Every structure is written in structure tokens, then in C-alpha cells.
């Protein structure tokens, strides 16, 4: 009985081993490409070590008791062994210690992630002297709109950032809730209709990084992907000026088209109308289109404006 049990356990674990040895390059989260993802990666590895330890202890005791006391005529049967203060205190204290060892770096990382990462490259000229780049992100069923409020351009389903520069993404939702996730650069945040949220990300070096919505939002959700293109300062400046000079402007009519629920190709615009910058959600936009004031639709008690203390609460 015991033998087959162990054999079957081994068979069950085989695919796991195959995986572990095979393809760790593919595993985006374990392959961080920026300081935010790296910080999270360190936390993940630390927890993985602690948790493997716990799992190992449980497995060792488990296998020991089964082998020792699972035999027909095992010695040491003791029906009156019903408790042991000392042991029970040990396995109360050890988990408490493990929790502390995990909680401390967790809280540290939590606070650290509120701060912008340290820049590792010189700022491109297009940032106009700023050390960071701010990008307003809006999720619309089922596409991503990126607005550069300082550079005054807009892109759809891809975003270009300078490598080595902290980028603040301010996240909004036009309709359904989505989540903005670029696993190689860092963890996700939701996009919501009633509160703007902030996410710092930074890429170590130029490259393309896959992003996707990670919160289900309906029919086109699986296709709701985007690419983050990190570029050198020079390339970034060139890209900004080429968009400004060569691409069409985003008109109000075109914007309304983008707000329809559908999937679209990546695109870029040299400018955008003022209404875009208001970050209206669907209800507010419907009100405006009906000639009403959008203000009455905002959430009482919360600052819905652009510069608000978004993402608190």
C-alpha cells in the first residue's frame, strides 16, 4: 500500500519537475525587467523559500507517520497519545515567526512601491525638464487609450516610454472595470470609473513588454492587450516628434468612435480635443452628449478631478 502510494506521488510530481527545468525564461513574473517587478520578485522568492520550508516539514512528517504507522503490525501504537503541550507550543510559535518574517518585507515593499523608482538614465528632452513621465491610461471595452498630458499626444493599445525613467500611469476606466498589468515591469492595478489610480513602472532597458487587462470585462477581454515599448532617450524624442509631425489629430468624432465597445488596431494621434483630458466615464459622457452637466454624476465625497488625491481610500 505504502509503496504504491509513494510511487503514485512520484508520478504525480513528474510534470512539475519537467516544468521547473524547462522554461524559466518564459515565466514573465520570475523574469523582472524593471525595478518595480524586481522588488516584487524578491518578495516572491523570499516567500517561496519560506513556504517550501513549511511544505517540506509537513511532507517529511507526513511520509514518516505513514511509513512508520501504516504497516499492518507497526510497533508504538499508543491510543492514549492525545496531546503534548510542548509540541503544540512549538507549532504555534514557529508559524508566528514565519508570519513575522514575511510580514516585515511585505509592509516595507508596500510603502516602497508608493515612491517612484530611481531613474537610471538621463531624461529625454521631450520631458521638458521633468525627471518622470506621466501617462493617463483609460480602459475602454476592449482597448487601452494612452494620453501623454505633457506631450499632448495619444496612442491606442501601445505605449512608448523612455527606458530607465520612472513612469507614472494614472489609471481610469470609461466603462467596465479592468486591470492594467505588465508582468515583466510590475504588478497590476484596477482601472475604475469613479476613482483615478496611480501606478509607477520603469523599464531597465529598451525592449517590448506585453501588457494585458487582467480583470474580466466581457466579450473582447481576451484580446485586450497592449505593448509597452521602452526606448532610449533619443529614440523616445524621435518617436514623440514623429507622432506630432506625421500623425492625424484625434477628433471628437473619432474619439467617440473609440469609446464604442469593440477591439481596434494600435494607433497614434498628434493631438487630442479638450474633452479627452476630462477623463469622463460613460455616464458622464452620455450626460455631456445629452447637453446636461456631468458633475452631478460624480461620486459624492470623492474628488473626481484630475489632480485629485486619486487612488486613496
Amino acid at each position, binding site marked *: 500500500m505504502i509503496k504504491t502510494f509513494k510511487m503514485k506521488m512520484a508520478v*504525480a510530481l513528474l510534470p512539475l519537475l519537467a516544468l521547473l527545468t524547462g522554461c524559466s525564461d518564459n515565466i514573465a513574473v520570475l523574469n523582472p525587467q524593471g525595478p518595480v517587478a524586481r522588488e516584487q520578485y524578491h518578495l516572491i522568492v523570499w516567500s517561496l523559500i519560506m513556504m517550501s520550508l513549511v511544505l517540506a516539514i509537513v511532507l517529511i512528517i507526513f511520509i514518516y507517520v505513514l511509513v512508520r504507522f501504516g504497516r499492518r503490525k507497526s510497533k508504538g501504537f499508543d491510543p492514549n*497519545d492525545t496531546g503534548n503541550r510542548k509540541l503544540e507550543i512549538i507549532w504555534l510559535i514557529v508559524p508566528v515567526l514565519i508570519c513575522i518574517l514575511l510580514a516585515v518585507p*511585505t509592509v516595507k515593499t*508596500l510603502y516602497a512601491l508608493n515612491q517612484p523608482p530611481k531613474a537610471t538614465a538621463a531624461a529625454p528632452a521631450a520631458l521638458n525638464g521633468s525627471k518622470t513621465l506621466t501617462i493617463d491610461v483609460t480602459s475602454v471595452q476592449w482597448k487601452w487609450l494612452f494620453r501623454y498630458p505633457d506631450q499632448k499626444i495619444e496612442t491606442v493599445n501601445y505605449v512608448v516610454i523612455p527606458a530607465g525613467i520612472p513612469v507614472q500611469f494614472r489609471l481610469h476606466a470609461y466603462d467596465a472595470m479592468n486591470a492594467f498589468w505588465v508582468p515583466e515591469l510590475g504588478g497590476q492595478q484596477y482601472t475604475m470609473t469613479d476613482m483615478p489610480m496611480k501606478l509607477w513602472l520603469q523599464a531597465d532597458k529598451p525592449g517590448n513588454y506585453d501588457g494585458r487587462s487582467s480583470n*474580466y*470585462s466581457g*466579450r473582447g477581454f481576451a484580446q485586450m492587450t497592449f505593448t509597452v515599448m521602452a526606448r532610449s532617450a533619443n529614440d523616445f524624442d524621435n518617436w514623440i516628434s514623429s507622432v506630432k509631425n506625421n500623425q492625424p489629430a484625434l477628433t471628437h468624432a473619432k474619439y467617440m468612435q473609440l469609446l464604442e465597445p469593440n477591439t481596434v488596431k494600435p494607433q497614434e494621434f498628434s493631438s487630442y480635443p479638450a474633452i479627452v483630458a476630462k477623463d469622463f466615464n*460613460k455616464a458622464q459622457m452620455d450626460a455631456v452628449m445629452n447637453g446636461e452637466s456631468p458633475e452631478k454624476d460624480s461620486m459624492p465625497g470623492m474628488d473626481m478631478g484630475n489632480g485629485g488625491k486619486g487612488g486613496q481610500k
Partner: protein
Amino acid sequence: MMDSITNFLSHFFVTGDPMIYGADASIALVSVAVLAVLTYFKKWKWLWNEWLTTVDHKKIGIMYIIAALLMFFRGGVDALMMRTQLAMPGLSFLNAEHYNQVFTTHGTIMIIFAAMPFIFGLMNIAVPLQIGARDVAFPFLNAVSFWLFFAGAMLFNLSFVIGGSPDAGWSSYAPFAGIELNPGVGQNYYVLAVQISGIGSLATGINFLVTILKMRAPGMKLFKMPMFSWSILITSVIIIFAFPAFTVALALMTIDRLFGAHFFTIAAGGSPMLWANLFWFWGHPEVYIVLLPVFGIFSDVIATFAHKTLFGYAVMVWSMIAISFLSFITWLHHFFTMGNTAPVNAFFSISTMLIAIPTGVKIFNWLFTLNKGRIEFTTPMLWALAFIPNFTIGGVTGVMLAMAPADYQYHNSYFLVAHFHSTLIAGTVFGIFCGLHYWWPKMFGYLLDEKKGKWAFWVFMISFNICFMPMYFLGLMGMTRRMYTYPAGLGWGPINFIMTIGAFGMGIGFAIMAYNIVWSAIHGKKDTTGDPWDGRTLEWSIASPAPEYNFAHIPTVSTRDAFETMKEEKRAGRAKPPAPFKPIHMPNNSGIPVIMSAFMFVAGFGFVFWWFWMAIPGVIGVIACLIARSFVYDDFHHIPVDEIERTERAAGRLS
């Protein structure tokens, strides 16, 4: 005229998919077959008298389990459809609309219409027997609970063929689940069906709380109760505190959708985040509602088959109490990424990690119950043993998810899906199957076949690992949950393919178990002693199947392992001679619960379609049933002594 009728019908019945026509046909065929068999064998009266109107906790338990097994089958078919669609990149076995409906119904059915009713079934059967009671505190209410669950389950499943299934996920996040972004009747089915069965669940919580507090056999102090009964006592308290939040949330969403209010909408100051808070304020305790009872089952089963008293009994109880308390202050870990400040996320990270402490304590106590035991590898014991390592994996990944900054990377990915299946399958499902095999003889008087049971176990358990272990890596690779397809070139294909093989393996395991149930019904070994496992608790002290009145004499309890002590006393020749029988007071059957739930179904169906002409009479019917019940004065009868004597003699209990 003709046009408008066909237009109505094509929206009313879901059309255009061969799978749905298949379902239509099979539902029609099965219904006709059931009706025909009942009529042919003249079983209508038997069905009504023995089952539909019963208030016997054991029969209600059996009905729960039958219904839950069917729902497991439905949820499992959903799972296999999803896994087929995801087996390779870019398949089009299901399109996006269908996939979205299928994962929604899979999650909702598995949690609300399979796992929870299954547990309610087991507790209905075992708790009164374990505490030496003749029924639950409110037998009529118990029947109402069951039939409300049944009405809710039928209403929910109807959506597959009539009107269309919900597709907003089992968590139904606003605003997507609101009428603006999700028109149609699917989400109406969700809010109403889940609400109807939820009322029944709340009543069950109250019922079992009172039963356990008030109806224990003389001498059974709280700290002498079997561990399963303890777990149900604590679960009942969780139900009573958690369900009202969900009842309110569902009611508000119903008002939003049916009457145009704005609690959770984008417009008019609605707050989608409020839904997330209310949902998870119920949702997190809910996972403990389906987990603590199986902790109880494992405790009893491990003690029985290690032939030892449970190690650290008091610590086990206090751990469960600690878990139940903590389960109410962790709900926010389901949305760490919804813009909370660092102190808020820190609080909920730590409160979630704290749950690991009492849970870890329990794991070690189980291990040390096995230590110095005489372990017997029966089918229920195999399920209990497999639980320990598999559930530990779910537990440690849960701690990893609790670390908020790391969760930013795991959240909503397949890492999360793998984690909660590691706990829900290795915990809840293993526990349910464990309890099913363990108490089967007490329900039906014969045992499930051990050999087939073990086959089912190994196939299911190994396949579970093949399906869900690779899934963790898939999540770290960036695949998110609820994707109906993925492109080639991301390297996700091979893992998905392995997982699909595992999923079908689990299907085969379940099929073997179903076969075992059918086979054993014909050839199963009779349980003539009432104590097939050398049990330690009171349910094994009576005949199998348990007689209607459970205990001819209410036992007196002096120790934790009450029946074990009785057996020892008997061996030592110290057993007292039995007292003479007295007539036993029992509740009367009632047709009101099933009729009332039928009205509830009608009302729910009417509301789903905004057909108030149908919904209002349904509601009136429900109220009429309540009024009618309040005029029933003699709701009990006595079982006379000679009938008790006859029953006991037939079971070989009188010499």
C-alpha cells in the same frame, strides 16, 4: 403577429448552438423518462409521502446530496468544456460569449449549488446522530431550506436553455454586471437564483446553531462534542454573520437591474467598489463555510482510522474559532489592487497571513493524530490523507497571495485559479468525498465498494495534480483567468494541454465514483452491525440505515469518544441493561415547503423576465404558504412503543 411570436421564442429559448439543442433534448428526454417511470411503477404517492414532504433530517440530507452530485456533474461538464477550449492556442470550440457564460456558471454552481449543499447534506445526516438527537431543532424549516436551495438551483440551471446564462463571473463585479453593460436576463438569473437559495442557507445556519446548542444528549458538554459537530456549530455562526451581507448586496443589485436604481452603477453616484466590499464580506467567510466542515470530517475520519483520539482536541476547536473570527477581517485581500492605501493593504495582508497560524496548527495536530496510530487505509481515509499534502500546497500559496505587493503580480492570474482550486478541491471536494464514503452505510445500510472507491480516489487525486500544479506556472507566465483563448507564440500551449489531460482524468475519476455508487447499490456489502468502521462517535451506535427516530433511547455521554467508551464498557461487562421503550415524539411531514418553494421559483422566474404579472402571484403564493403554516397546530405525532420494538428487532438490536 407570427413574426413577433417567433422573435419572442427565439429570444426566450437560447438558440443557435448544437450544444444547447443537445441540452434541450436531453432535459426533455430525462424529464419524460422520470415522469414515465414514476407513473408506470405507481410511485407518485411514495415520492410525495416519503420524500417531497419529508421533514426527516436524514432524508433531507440524502436529497441534498443527490442534488449536489447532479450539480457537481453540471459544474464538471462546464469545467471540461473550458479545458477543451483552452487545450491549445486559438481553438474555437467555444466562442467568447459561451466561454464567459460557462466559467460563470461553473464557479457559481460549484460553490453555491454543489459544494455548499453537499456539505449541508452531510451535516443533515451526521450532526443530529453525532449529538444524540432525534431531529434538528426546526425540522419544518429544514425542509424549507432544502426546497429553497432546490428552487434556486433549478432556476439557475434553467438559464442555460431559456433566456441565456449569466456571464459576469461568479463574483459578478459591478459595473460590468449592471444593466448598462450587461443587458439581458442572464445576470437576473444569477441575482435571483442565488438569493433564493441563500435564504435557505441562512435558515440552515440558524437551524443548526440551535440544534447543536440545545439538543445535545445529556452529558455531552460542548467540549465533548465530535469534531464534525463542532465545525458545523462554528460554520453556522459564520453563515449567520456572513449571509446577510450577501442578501443585501444581491437585493441592491436586483433593484439596480430590475427597477433602475443606482447602487452599483457608473451613473448617478453608484459605487462599483461597494459591490466588491459587500460581495467579499460574504465571499471570504463563504470559503470557510465550505472548508471548516471538511476540517471536521477529516478530524473524525483520521481519528477513526488511526484508531486514536484526536490529538490536541481543545486546540483544534480553538483554531477553528480563531479561523472563523479572522475570516471576517480579511475580505479586502480579494482586491488589494483596487487603489487602497499602504496601511489598509498592510492590515489585510497581515490579517490574512494570521489565518495560516491556526490552520498550520490544525495540520500538525492531524499529523500527530496519525503518529502512534494504527493507520487503516480505507477509502475515506485515503481522501483524508491526500488532503494533508495537497491542501498544504493550497495553504502556502495562499500565504504567498496574502503578501499584497506580490499579489499585484498573482492577482487574477492562473496562479490565483490554481490556488483556490488547491483549497476547494483538495479541501472541500476531497472532504465531501471522504464524508460520502464514511457515512454512506449510515445513510443506506450498505457500504460503497472499497476497490472501486480506491480506484476513483487515485485517478481523481493524481489527475487533480496534473491539472492544477502546472497552472501555478501558467499564472506566473502572465495568463489571466477568464480568457476564452490565447494566441500561439506565448509558450502557454504545452502547459494548457497537460492541464486539460488532468481535467479529463478528474472526470474519469468522478465517473468511476458514480459507477461505484450504482454498482454498490446492487452488490454492496450490507452493514449489519451499524458500526462498519469501528467508529468512535454516537452515529455508529445505532443501526444502519438509521431508523426514523434515530435513537430508541437517548444515550448518555461521559467522554469525547462517546461510542468508543460505550464499547469499552460493554467489553468490560459494565453495560447497563436497556430501559423500556417510551413513545417517541416526532414532527409531522408537510407539503408546504415544497409548494412554497415552487411559488418562489415562479416568482423568481417572473422577476428574471421583468414579468411582474407572474412574479407577483408567485410572491403572494409564498406569503399564503407562510400564513397557512401558521395555522397548523398539531404538527407532531408519537411513534408507539410496539412500532419501535418492531423496528429495533428487525435491525437485530433486540435479543
